[in-house]
């Protein structure tokens, strides 16, 4: 993801990458019309095309056409259950990424959701920004190329030697800071929420206190963005952080 993505992307002046209008078709299978309306509105305002189905059966039919780039599926649906929809879709060999929504907060609920073939899991209630960030993340899964070097703007990272440079300046990082920066550099220009980072970098599923990730980012930012340098790590209020790709 350092140079180009498969989807059409364009960058705004701040280095935020938006998916183009034609880029993302989201299939939403959700029976709660109030929540569905919110989700559709939010996704459309971020430039997605959204197709909404209210039942599992209709959702499955829509999913099997394969036109969606990403699916957002509620677990509890009238008629066919959300997990069954996902399982059926996977059995037909369709690899469309799926975000599972659930009002249940059971301990191993997430596990069953992911086992059925879901790619990510979000428990209601959630912030809309969180949903959008996760849908974007699913659309642009980092290409896990075996390249041992990452480059984002002035930053370059050597994954073998575990070293990072900003232009000519080498940045000394602790192992946890290195992991965090690697995560950011694999997703440049993408809004990453705190819970996404906790889940992906630390494999934790809950936010013990809100400023935990902020403190980690703060430490990293102080090392990456030296005084006088163009700041690369941006905070997105109410949502999370992103690594800018300077134009």
């Amino acid at each position, binding site marked *: 993801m350092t140079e180009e993505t498969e989807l059409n992307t364009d960058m705004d002046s701040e280095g935020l990458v938006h998916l183009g209008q034609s880029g993302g078709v989201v299939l939403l299978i959700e029976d709660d019309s109030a929540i569905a309306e919110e989700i559709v509105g939010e996704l459309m305002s971020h430039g997605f095309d959204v197709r909404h189905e209210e039942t599992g059966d209709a959702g499955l039919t829509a999913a099997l056409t394969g036109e969606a780039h990403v699916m957002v599926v509620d677990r509890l649906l009238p008629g066919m259950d959300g997990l069954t929809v996902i399982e059926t879709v996977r059995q037909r060999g369709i690899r469309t990424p799926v975000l599972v929504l659930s009002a249940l907060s059971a*301990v*191993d609920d997430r596990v069953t959701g992911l086992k059925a073939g879901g790619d990510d899991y979000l428990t209601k209630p959630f912030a809309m920004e969180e949903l959008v960030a996760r849908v974007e993340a699913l659309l642009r899964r980092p290409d896990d190329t075996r390249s041992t070097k990452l480059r984002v703007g002035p930053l370059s990272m050597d994954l073998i030697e575990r070293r990072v440079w900003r232009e000519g300046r080498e940045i000394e990082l602790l192992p946890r800071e290195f992991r965090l920066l690697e995560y950011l550099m694999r997703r440049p220009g993408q809004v990453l929420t705190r819970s996404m980072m906790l889940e992906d970098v630390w494999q934790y599923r809950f936010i*013990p206190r809100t400023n935990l990730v902020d403190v980690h980012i703060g430490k990293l930012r102080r090392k990456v963005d030296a005084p006088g340098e163009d700041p690369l790590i941006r905070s997105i209020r109410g949502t999370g952080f992103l690594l800018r790709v300077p134009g």
Partner: protein
Amino acid sequence: MFLAELFRTATFRLTLAALAAMAGVMVMQFGLVYTQMEAVESRRSTELLRGEARLLAQMTPEHLEYVIRKRATDDLRLVISSAGLFDSSHALITGDLHAWPKGLVADGKPHNIEIYPEEGAAYPLRLLAETLPDGTILVLGRSFHLLAEQKLMLRHATVVAAIPTLLFALLLGMVLSRRALLRVKEMHEAIDLIMAGDIHERLPAGKERDDLERLAGSVNRMLDRLERLMDGMREVGNDIAHDLRTPLSRVRAKLERALTSGGEREALEGAVSRAVDNLDQCLGIITALLRIAELESSRRRAGFGTVNLNDLGADVVDLYEPIAETEGVALVMQSTAVPVCLFGDRHLLVELLVNLVDNAIKFTPEGGQVTVSVLRQAGSVRLAVTDTGIGIAPEEHGAVLSRFYRSDKSRHVPGSGLGLSLVSAIAHLHDATVQIEDGPEGRGTRFSIIFMLQHALKAPD
């Protein structure tokens, strides 16, 4: 009405059963005495007849004839009711037996034979015939009237004794049942009161001297426990309501002020964003409550696997080090030389440890230290978080694990108050116990999670 109710009581039915048993015993006893009496009388009369026959046989025929005719000896008059002397062809020589009794054999053995007198009804006699040396036959008979009289007396006595005895037993049963019924009725009334909502009412248990009172005592103790549980639930309910109302009323006030001030876009945005923060806090409380309820009710171990406590501790310390640093608290990990593994849910154990570490950092002032340590002990593994913070008063050690408990010292610190309940629920799922004690040198607090060894796996060598 009373009788119908009485009959339905267990005591009365028991009384009736006892009564029936008693009557049965009496019938059996009567039957035995009755038959025994017959046997004894039969033996006695045989002996008497034989003895008398022997005595009479020794007399001269003339003397015998005289004795029979006159029935002259005392013995004959007293014990022998009939006597006769017959010749060898069964013709009467003398005596009060008018004819040779039908079926009598002169074999010197007693025979019970029906006698048909010339007038009057037939009557049974026990007869014995003995052939004398001169060829005549001596016949002696003894009537059954004595036995019949005794039997009559016995029957009378039995009936006379049985009726009042059984009646008395019945009466006693009724009285006892009535008493039991009254006590059960009292208990019914007490239970009705409790069901109607008077949870403080108790059953009359007296001094718990008998079964019924002991049962009532047990029920009362059960009610005590239920009442305590209900109080606890009510308290938790109140706490939840209170903890939700505070942030919700703040949201309301903020939004209302933003609405009426009709202010700038920026001020509105600020107000809305703070309102969202407060709502998140409410949702956090609800989520935590649901999680605790889920953990407490389920014994699911779907996510269980081998967890290395040293790695787990190191991960959490790694996650919290920057926070500890910014708050001026040293966060230290003390691991064991060999890996300590146990069977558990890694995600839940991380959550447990994160809650403990988060709390410890929160309550430790700048310059303090928080230590995460793993310790192998005989039969158990100890995961401990020790801080040098404000400490917890000993009398509060038990209470801090309950829901929403906030120590007086921690009122000002934000949080859901549910972290330690979550710790306790997760520990419980792992069959581990939570121990709270003062830190070393009486400073701060040490939280220990003690895992029993059946969950701890052998360290791979």
